[in-house]
């Protein structure tokens, strides 16, 4: 059994390769080995949601996954949201509606909201609250985030 494993994966469409111990968490691999520090490390045990990324197209918490499990996977992180130098419509909505303050939870909020709106393109407020409850925010009081997700929903639905 090798102590070091090779992890080949795609992040935001770019192929990467790294070597690490099997116990290395995916979020630490993304931040330290790939240098993509947009994904944040919060509670480190799957509660706060700051580390949420897209794993093969679905939102997942990268602090409770191993890097080695992402071998062969396609990830998307907050760095991949901008298009041609412009903010993603969801990011634009967060800015417009005060969906962030300190910004620590924002990468996780965005990736969670993205998967939420993908599977529920026209949500009501109760559903948005339920979806967003996956990520803890200590600044905004959530209302701005709920407003942002509600505002972004038709734009994202139209793009699909």
């Amino acid at each position, binding site marked *: *059994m090798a102590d070091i*494993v090779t992890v080949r994966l795609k992040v935001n469409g770019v192929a990467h390769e790294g070597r*690490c*111990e*099997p*116990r*290395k*968490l995916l979020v*630490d691999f993304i*931040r*330290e*080995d790939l240098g993509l*520090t947009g994904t944040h490390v919060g509670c*480190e*045990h*799957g509660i706060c*949601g700051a580390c*949420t990324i897209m*794993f093969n197209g*679905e*939102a*997942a*918490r990268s*602090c*409770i*996954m*191993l890097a*080695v*499990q992402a071998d062969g996977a396609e990830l998307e992180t907050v760095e991949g949201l901008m298009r041609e130098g412009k903010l993603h419509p969801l990011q634009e909505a967060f800015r417009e509606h005060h969906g962030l303050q300190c910004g620590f939870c924002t990468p996780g909020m965005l*990736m*969670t909201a993205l*998967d*939420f709106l993908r*599977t529920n393109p026209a949500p009501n407020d109760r559903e948005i*609250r*339920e*979806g967003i*409850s*996956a990520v803890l925010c200590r600044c905004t009081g959530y209302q701005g985030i709920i407003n942002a997700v509600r505002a972004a929903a038709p734009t994202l639905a139209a793009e699909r």
Partner: protein
Amino acid sequence: MIARSEATPPRSANGDNAKNENANNENANNENANDENAKNENANDENGRVGATRFVLRPPSVQAGLKAPATMKPPKFEYHAPKSLEEALAALGRYGGDAKVLAGGQSLMPLLNFRLARPAALVDLNRIASLAYIREQDGQIRFGAMTRQRTIEFSSVVAQRLPLLKEATRWVGHLPIRTRGTIGGSIAHADPSAEYPAVLAALEGEVVARGAKGERVIRAADLFQTYLTTTLAPDEILTEVRLPAMPAGAGYALEEFARRHGDFAIIGIAALVVREGQRCKLARLATAGAGPVPVRLRAAEEILEREGLGDAAVEAAARRATELVNPDADIHASADYRRHLTGVLTKRALTRAIGVARG
């Protein structure tokens, strides 16, 4: 706040400090990274940001000058990612109970991060494609153990045949938990507050376990022993979950109280009723969070089966439910409060289940 300013000169200025020099020499890769940053910073300066101070946060291991970035939370373990069940069983067998099976990881990984679990090895089932399926067979819906909760949430078979399971799934963690979490993992983990064990108990489902000695089927009533403990042997893997299809027109409800939606239940009640007019042909009630294992409230079920589905019978069943549980107190709720909630939620679950029951 630990930050590093762009203005900090990389190597040369540290030269007069012997300790720093050593740290830097050990850290050739980092130095290169810093040099590259320096280049980028110069480029920024050319873009008219002369004198602007940019703060760059570096991971703790880099700040500490480690040779390779190496933040590690889980303890060391040997890692196996077999592609077949046979390989997985062989790997598991080699460790004589010191290995853990990794399914969705939504409970085991936090335990590893906290180092509350220190297995010699992990046997990761995530690469075994044949363990993820939903099949209808012999009046049962059979789930491969690695079927994700998110798949169950959107399955049309589940929506038609097991609407109680679909409703329960919405209460399992949060969206990004359910994309990874599996039905087999949730049941094998046997958290007494979890929804799937309660549904397994209410529907009188069973699980299939495979071990070196072959396969056996374990009924829900024989599976859960106590907190986080099942009758699965250390060298067995839970491979399939079987739930009998709910009778057409059956009423169902899962009522749960938690501080936030998605938290573990303080109390949850799964209810199933099959009605014939005002008569109750069959009633099922099971709890989450009301003891070390899911509790079937058989004596409360019998009240309904005997007295029908009127308000008085529901009231009596709910009262009886509070006497059938022996909950623990913890940081989230006292035992008395849990017992009280058992009654309140039983009444709510039954009222809603009866409301949607046809027949």
